């Protein structure tokens, strides 16, 4: 599914903002996530203490370029991540706007081109824009990570129709909803819509009880995926009686 790696769990977790590394490891275990993202733009090479603690989770690490505002910065951070973590995976974030943390599509494609041709396996944090998605695939990305809503906003799937269209437009590319998920119901919805996985951080990290919330999301993602596989019934405009009306007494 993801560059030759197929996790059993379709939930990915970010590792920022937890009350402590101990709570973080417990939440990772409760979430059953097998892929976790780690930032290093701000932490730099000196973050070994924290990195060793999260490596101990046994999860596959997906370093990210959170906090990068240009293609150049993102490329440098990705190279550093490859050295520090020994992985060619990189979650590519190039932020275009410091307030909304919205991706900069132009710099994103530029950085994706450089990184893919340098042997990286790139997971780009993108919008639901189809042309942008195509350009990223053309650059060499084999996964796309459209946002649900701005990072940390908890708004869920803000452009649901556009995300439906995106899913239909890229039937064979793994699509991961990244960012904006605030509640398990929103994660379940994304999975019902046929997205391959969900990545989230704040909703778990800043919950009153992150470990229990991690478990809640694990259940929601699993339920949503099962529903998708089972085939959801379509919506109808009218109620449909399950017993035939014909032959019943007319009461009016």
């Amino acid at each position, binding site marked *: 599914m993801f560059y030759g790696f197929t996790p059993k769990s379709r939930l990915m977790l970010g590792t920022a903002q937890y*009350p402590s*590394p101990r709570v973080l490891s417990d939440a990772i275990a409760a979430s059953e996530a097998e892929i976790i993202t780690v930032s290093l733009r701000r932490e*730099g090479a*000196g*973050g070994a*203490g924290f990195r060793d603690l999260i490596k101990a989770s046994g999860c596959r690490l997906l370093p990210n370029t959170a906090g990068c505002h240009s293609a150049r910065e993102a490329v440098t951070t990705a190279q550093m991540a490859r050295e520090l973590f020994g992985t060619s995976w990189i979650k590519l974030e190039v932020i275009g706007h410091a307030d909304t943390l919205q991706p900069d599509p132009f710099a994103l494609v530029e950085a994706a081109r450089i990184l893919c041709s340098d042997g990286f396996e790139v997971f780009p944090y993108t919008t639901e824009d189809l042309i942008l998605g195509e350009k990223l695939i053309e650059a060499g990305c084999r996964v796309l990570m459209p946002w649900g809503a701005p990072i*940390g906003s908890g708004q869920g799937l803000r452009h649901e129709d556009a995300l439906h269209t995106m899913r239909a437009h890229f039937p064979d590319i793994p699509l991961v909803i990244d960012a904006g998920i605030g509640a398990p119901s929103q994660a379940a919805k994304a999975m019902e819509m046929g997205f391959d996985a969900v990545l989230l951080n704040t909703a778990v990290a800043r919950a009153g009880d992150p470990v229990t919330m991690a478990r809640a999301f694990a259940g929601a993602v699993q339920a949503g995926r099962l529903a998708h596989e089972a085939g959801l019934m379509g919506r109808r405009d009218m109620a449909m009686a399950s017993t035939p009306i014909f032959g019943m007494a007319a009461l009016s």
Partner: protein
Amino acid sequence: MFSVIGNGVTGLCVASALTERGLPVELLADSSTPASHWAGGMLAPGCEGESAPSDVVSAGAGAADWWAARVPGVVRRGTLVVVPPRDSAELDRFARMTRGHDAADPGILEPELAGRFARGLYFPEEAHLDPRAAMTALRDRLTAKGVPIRRGEPRGRVIDCRGMAARDMLPDLRGVRGEMLIVEAPELELTRTVRLLHPRFPCYVVPRGQGRYMIGATMVETDDPGPITARAIMELLSAAYALHPGFAEARLVEAGAGLRPAFPDNIPAIREERGRIHVNGMYRHGFLMAPALAEALADRLQMEMRDAS
């Protein structure tokens, strides 16, 4: 004889608690700058409950009394927590996660903030102090009690309070970088600690007297002790500016960065390893938790001495 090693808040508190029980103590301190030099000096167990477990909140409850009984300058005016209108969900979250607060009108508690913030939380039991002045006072107090403060090799049973320097013996100790500013803004008058909540750049402002304010603090998972970054200065100052535009005219007196020593659960602890007692992992809670740990350790050692005699 107990040899307390460390020149930060933990070593001073442990040496004080031991000597107050009549136990023989020496304090071994070098000239390095302890993490507590950069601390905010908030004695705010209620607010810390937002991210800290209840053990820290309850153990920290006695900190203000402990300090007030020993050093001058403990200001008991509580903590005011405010939030910009568009992030008001943060205040609800903060209120849910903490205890010991009342809803407050920020402008009534701090007239400078009138009209700027509609809602606030007030933690009346909380206090603050100036960490550097408090440490100097505690050190002088030890000297007055005849506790030798020196450099060199320990002569007694070692109580290691070296913070990050003890990492050679505590492999799971890590550094969490904190960056802070001290500004001089004589035209502003804030009388108590004010916390500004923000989903990404929370900050607090602690009055240090004479128009000075400490603005803190970043939390970065790294053990890089280098100088403060431009980003940290920008974030802290823009948060302070959001609190009150008057901070734009403040003079930047100092900018610093230090490493908070932290265990994986971020809870300060007493450990005993290979005959050496460690008091470490103070994380954000040095001034709040060092007194409680020092007293707990002193109780235990006093009991041991009594049993042995």
